[in-house]
């Protein structure tokens, strides 16, 4: 099956929705289901496959690339998007005006994950960015529009910087195909300074969406102020695409010296994110800064660049996506029911809504990296590979991890705090949220406690991240 359907179907349905407003919700649902199922089919095969678009052979035309890494990340992104749609579908009023935007964002995210062409990537980044700006302003308060505007400014500057980087690289390499450029880079055919400049510009551009310091100023405002479904999609689905693409592109066409910068920025992001998260008083902001830190964790591993590091990076991306989905869902649910989500309002939630408390605890423990959960396996590999660089790196990461555990446990304790006052009424989660939350939590536990063989898929993904693009490029150049 040609993966271009994953992009084409949502895009087509989105265009239809603009004319047929009344059925736009159903078209969104349809595209989400189609993409989820198609994504699962994609994961059944293995190896690296490349598909040309429009009949133009690469490296002259645009092609889509499906590696072992894509086979994990794409289904996860699409399925999580589908889950988000299911959970929020019943609240028709909220979705109505924006279902077109969601459909377009789904198409663009798939495009980002699949494309093997730099300019095509720029196009999809712009589309995803515009969709994200619109999603960011869905919040009820006026501040959400301000946050979205800031996101718009920073995002536009970021994509322009990326475009400049692409232009510089195109001028030097003569092609826009990532695999072809990767081959040229590894053969040493491109000028070092040119490579460095283009890498820095591309890091800046991609770093905006990947929440890298100092490009991530938009994150706290957007994550705390936008509507529930928007936050869910922006916090758990977008990072899967963005961070993995960052890794893919920088590893393929980036200058080796730029990888040092990636390590520095990644570690700085982790530390800054965790320290600021520690001081937050309400759950939404804590999760926003924690998301920043998790992105930093996944990205600094890219700078290290070994297969083990990239395996850890893929695992961290997946862990973050699954766990943040649950955490943000529980948080938005409690905000709706209880009105606020600061520490005092959440006291005893674990007893009022036991299932919510359980899935929250499992996800929080997974993000902080406790054994029995996927996050622990990921962190273990991450720390193990961080020893490849300076000793300062693991020390800072571990310090940040200690801070992270402390503030996550603060929230877990608040949930299970014994009662002092009168019994509060039992809250019941909506059925979809409960079912999806339990499934995701179960996956986190299963992956965390299963044997090594189950995680072979992640190792293959890590391998693919490092090698597949260049290998494809070598085959291409050889063929042409």
């Amino acid at each position, binding site marked *: 099956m040609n993966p271009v359907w994953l992009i084409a179907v949502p895009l087509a349905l989105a265009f239809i929705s603009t004319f047929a407003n009344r059925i736009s919700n159903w078209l969104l649902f349809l595209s989400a289901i189609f993409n989820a199922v198609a994504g699962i089919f994609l994961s059944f095969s293995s190896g690296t496959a490349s598909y040309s678009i429009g009949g133009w052979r690469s490296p002259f035309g645009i092609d889509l690339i499906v590696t072992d890494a894509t086979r994990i990340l794409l289904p996860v992104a699409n399925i999580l998007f589908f889950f988000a749609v299911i959970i929020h579908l019943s609240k028709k009023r909220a979705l109505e005006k924006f279902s077109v935007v969601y459909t377009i964002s789904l198409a663009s995210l798939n495009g980002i994950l699949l494309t093997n062409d730099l300019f095509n990537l720029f196009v999809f980044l712009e589309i995803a960015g515009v969709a994200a700006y619109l999603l960011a302003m869905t919040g009820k308060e006026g501040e959400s529009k301000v946050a979205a*505007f*800031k996101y718009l*400014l*920073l995002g536009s*500057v*970021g994509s322009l*910087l990326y475009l400049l980087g692409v232009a510089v690289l195109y001028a030097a390499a003569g092609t826009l195909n990532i695999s072809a450029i990767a081959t040229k880079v590894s053969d040493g055919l491109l000028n070092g*300074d040119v490579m*460095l400049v283009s890498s*820095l510009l591309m890091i*800046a551009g991609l770093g*905006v969406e990947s929440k890298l310091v*100092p*490009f*991530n*100023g*938009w994150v*706290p405002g957007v994550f705390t102020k936008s509507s529930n479904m928007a936050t869910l999609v922006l916090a758990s689905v977008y990072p899967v695409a963005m961070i993995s693409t960052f890794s893919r592109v920088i590893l393929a066409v980036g*200058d080796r*010296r*730029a990888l040092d*910068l990636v390590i520095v920025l990644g570690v700085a992001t982790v530390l*800054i994110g965790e*320290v*600021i*998260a*520690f*001081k937050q008083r309400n759950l939404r902001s804590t999760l926003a800064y924690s998301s920043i830190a998790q992105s930093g964790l996944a990205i600094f591993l890219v700078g290290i660049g070994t297969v*083990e590091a990239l395996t850890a990076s893929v695992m961290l991306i997946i862990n973050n996506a699954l766990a943040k989905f649950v955490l943000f869902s529980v948080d938005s649910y409690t905000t709706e029911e209880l009105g606020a989500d600061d520490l005092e309002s959440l006291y005893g939630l674990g007893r009022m809504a036991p299932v919510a408390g359980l899935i929250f*605890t499992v996800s929080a423990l997974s993000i902080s990296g*406790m*054994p*029995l959960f996927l996050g*622990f*396996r990921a962190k*273990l*590999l991450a*720390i*193990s590979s961080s*020893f490849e660089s300076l000793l300062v790196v*693991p*020390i800072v990461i*571990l310090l940040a*991890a*200690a*801070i992270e*555990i*402390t503030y996550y*446990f*603060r929230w*877990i*304790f*608040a949930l*299970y*705090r*014994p009662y002092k006052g009168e019994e509060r009424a039992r809250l019941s989660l909506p059925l979809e949220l409960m079912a999806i939350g339990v499934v995701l939590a179960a996956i986190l536990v299963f992956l965390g406690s299963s*044997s*090594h*063989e189950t995680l072979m898929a992640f*190792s293959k993904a890590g391998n693919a991240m490092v090698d597949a693009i260049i290998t494809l490029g070598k085959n291409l150049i050889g063929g042409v």
Partner: protein
Amino acid sequence: MSILTLLVASLLATPILYLIAKFNTKIAYGAYAVLQVFSFIYVFFTGRSNVSYEVIGITERLNFNFGITPTNWFFASIVLLIISMSAIFMFPLKKSPVKIFLLGLVSAGTLGAVFSQDFLTLMIFWEISTWASLILIIQDKEKSLKEAIKYVAIASIGTYSMLFAIFYMLDKLGSIEFSTVAARIGGATAEVQLVILISLGVMVLAKMGVFPLHIWLRGSHSSAPDEFSPILSGALTKIGAFLLFIITSALPSFMIFSKLPVFNGIPVVNYAFALLGGISIVVGTVMAIRMEDAKELIAFSTVSNSGYIVMALSIGGTYATAGGLMHVLNHAMASAAMFMAIAAVAYRTGTTKMHEMGGLILKMPVTFATYLVAIISIAGIPPTSGFVSKWLIYQQLVQNGLPFLAFAAFFGSIGSFMYVFKPLAGIFLGQLKPRHRNLKEVPFVMVVPMTILTLLTVFWGILPSNAIKTINAVTASVGINAVEVTFSRIVALTGEWDSILVTTVFAIGFFISLFIFMRAKKARQVDLMDNYTAGDFLYTSELYHFSYRMYRPFDRLFEKWPSMEDWLSSLSDKIKELGALLKAIFYPANPQLYIGLAIVAIIGTFWWLR
């Protein structure tokens, strides 16, 4: 059936117990108790076979390694003894499905940890039981949240220090199994050795509650559910002792650091650890004397005794190692017994504040006897087992010529008379409060484990050679000399003593006093108002049982002592301030500043990387 099966069964039993507890908590708790007792009996009687297993992978290069060396068996038996006794004890106390689930995880994690043969396995299972115990601590009492956060912070310092050590070890030495590391670490550079051992040492200090990482103990042990405190203090801290034993004796740190400066026959690094242990003894003792709540007091007693264990195992040598291991056993039993006695009292009276009780000796004699024997053991008085371990440690201190540490050890012993007496006098002796007039002894289910621990403490006090022989087997497996024992006689450097003889002398003394007591005239019980007043009139009955701030003069001596608990909260404040600063720099309100930062970053790094 092997240890692995037992481990898997414990892990799988946990969700099953949760589901059973949803229907009937009694059955679930009963099943849990049976499982723990069975585990203990199985391990105790079939262990020591020196089998080892290598299991399913954690990552590509690392596997779980389990084994049953004598060391594993020794620590496993102690830990399982405490857990099984507590499991029986907790039956009448407040039950809930969440608690039994977490207890199941704690015991499964502990089981995995004590049977580990490499550092990562140890760490993983230890972490499982740590996070489960964290959530368990906050189950009952309101004030437990703030205290538990301190435990989180310090436990995470320890864990990440150990994680660092593990991967550093893997990087430099190529393996993390105990035996392989022991073989290779001798050949590494001094810097590598120091880094590994100090990072592991931080974990030991954090988990055992030794100065300067002792500040979490007071809050966590005292605010934990009453049935869980014995496990926390008697079992979980002993896993730290397991790690310490591996570091100091199995690796062993003496040979490794023999190139470094040596202080009185002990390498400097070991001496530093022993010093921390000594300071811990003094701090724990002094703070315990000042406490008003019985559980906080016993928590500080744990700090003090963990200091003994760290000091003894760090100094090394035949007698200190044997004494340290014996102290692990003694303190586990005595601490668990003390916490159980306090839990029993709290079960009946509803409080653990000592000045709210009194005179309970008449109403709860078995609890009193348990507590009495436990404190005699902590104070190190024959014929209880506590005397043996302390005697052995003193022997080594005297031989090595370590005056400060010897002073600390003696101070700890004498000071412990003071603080263990406080709950005794406050809770059991003195006047019975009117509202406690109808109290009964605790149910039989709670009496049994207390009695078992008491009898074991006395048994090993009368016949310590039984325990010492086992400990000799453990130390022999790591190459340390054995303590010479015969049936009842222990031989050491400054002399020998015969335990049967000592017990006989005590018994004779006891019977003489008993005889005098019985032959003398019975005291006449009078009402409080029936008193000599020299012409004045009595209208109200006075309180003659002074148990509030019993040691006020001593308290005043140490009033201005700086509290270490503050440093953790001020650290947390500093991190929050740093967070505010970082937020102001990197997340300003104006988007122009973001863009400015981005451009500066790009230009700056180009200049750097070019």
